């Protein structure tokens, strides 16, 4: 199996090293959680894969074999566009809004076992507007399509951002602490929703929350000042869902991860 992306190298901010030499290979499929405290360069690694400016000096090699979509803690919603406008932003920015959108990569637009109109096997609509409407319904904002971001709650904004990420329809999805600013209940709901809707895609989730990694990680990588460590693979996750937040084995994994971060 070819890797979706890989980062090999080290980075500095000014003269101070940001992270020791790391080797991160992202295999196709599943959720990889990059867990670590703030300031160790988790987001830098994600931004390197996304091809964005990092503000750090990187020495090494970044390989990416497939197109990406990005979702970050700041949902980056456009204040003058309503929910639909924000979801279809990518099409607008590529000048393909209105034209029938053809998936840009082979085997694209795979839908997971999603309830409702996006159920597996159901053919998603091709026109961007109809596709956006389906995704907005899937994230539970069907009654908010014409609301501006200013009139949405924090959770609803992240739901919009999730729909926008799905609209991009990319095989590799980069999540940069997307739920960090949410309250505990909304965060757990968003984790469930993201696990369901992003199933069957390759996901890199950058997080500083061991509970989040314990719920969502098919594979967990711990990034500390000393370097990158692969955590033993946890038991498989239920298909298209996050692990229950209150299951003893999830809580135990969360505690272990916390110990790992403190070490």
């Amino acid at each position, binding site marked *: 199996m070819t890797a979706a992306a890989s980062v090999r190298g080290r980075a500095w901010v000014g003269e101070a090293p940001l992270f020791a030499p790391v080797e991160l290979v992202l295999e196709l499929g599943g959720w990889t959680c990059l867990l670590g405290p703030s300031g160790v360069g988790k987001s830098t690694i994600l931004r390197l894969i996304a091809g*964005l400016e990092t503000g750090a000096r990187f020495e090494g090699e970044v390989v990416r074999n497939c197109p990406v979509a990005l979702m*970050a803690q700041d949902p980056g919603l456009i204040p*003058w566009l309503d929910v639909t406008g924000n979801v279809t*932003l990518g099409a607008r*920015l590529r*000048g393909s809004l209105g034209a029938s959108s053809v998936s840009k990569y082979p085997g694209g637009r795979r839908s997971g076992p999603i309830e409702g109109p996006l159920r597996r096997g159901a053919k998603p609509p091709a026109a961007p507007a109809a596709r956006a409407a389906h995704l907005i319904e899937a994230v539970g904002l069907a009654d908010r399509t014409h609301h501006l971001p200013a009139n949405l709650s924090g959770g609803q904004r992240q739901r919009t951002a999730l729909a926008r990420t799905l609209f991009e329809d990319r095989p590799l999805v980069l999540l940069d602490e997307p739920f960090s600013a949410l309250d505990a209940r909304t965060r757990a709901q968003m984790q469930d929703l993201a696990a369901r809707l992003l199933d069957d895609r390759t996901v890199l989730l950058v997080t500083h929350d061991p509970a989040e990694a314990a719920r969502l990680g098919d594979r967990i990588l711990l990034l500390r000042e000393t370097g990158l460590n692969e955590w033993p693979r946890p038991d498989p996750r239920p298909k298209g869902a996050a692990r229950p937040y209150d299951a003893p084995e999830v809580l135990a994994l969360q505690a272990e991860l916390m110990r790992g971060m403190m070490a």
Partner: protein
Amino acid sequence: MRTVAALVVTILALWQGVIWLAGMPPFLLPSPLAVADALWINRAEIARHAGFTLAEVVLGFTLGSALGAALAVAMGFSQKLTGVLRPILTFSQTIPVFALAPILTLWLGFGMAPKIAMTVLIVFFPVASAFLDGLMRTPQAALDLAQVMGAGRTRIMRHLRIPAALPSLATGLRLAAVYAPIGAVIGEWVGGARGLGALMIHANGRMKTDLVFAALLVLSVMTVIFARLVAIALHRLLRRYGV
């Protein structure tokens, strides 16, 4: 409104009081009544001159704003261009426009052209400067997304940076609307026989100080109304765009 009325009455009373107490001759400081009188007697002439000044202001403001906005967008596209143009623009603002007026009149004649050019010179800098500021402050999260989404520079400019910078552009335009008449009047002082500036110089030369004050009053009121109209138009425009 009541405060404004009270302020106007107080100023008029002080004005009249100074004339009575100091016994100022009318050619140095005409009384408010004399100014009102001059305004009424010369209303046709003043209106004609005001019309010319207003035309220069509107044309100069429109041209200068378009020029300033276009310059800001061009600079927003290219760091290199910004590096070259910014010092030139700053340098251009160190030259007092008063010094340029005779040269512009020499080059462009005694018609409307040098007045419009003066207004353009005054208007374009605040507009370009405020707009460029806005263009450079697009939220990074939106720019990151656009880049990952594979957007081109032109579309990012059109769909993200320009709409996000419209409030900054509006700030520049509101400021420019207040300054625009200054450019026109300076132009009129230097050459030509039309416009409120020319009327003031002419009246001043004939010691008709009351007429100078009347023209000045009309100019002020015109400027306030023009700036207010621009502000209202911008407010509506921004609300329609939702930024």
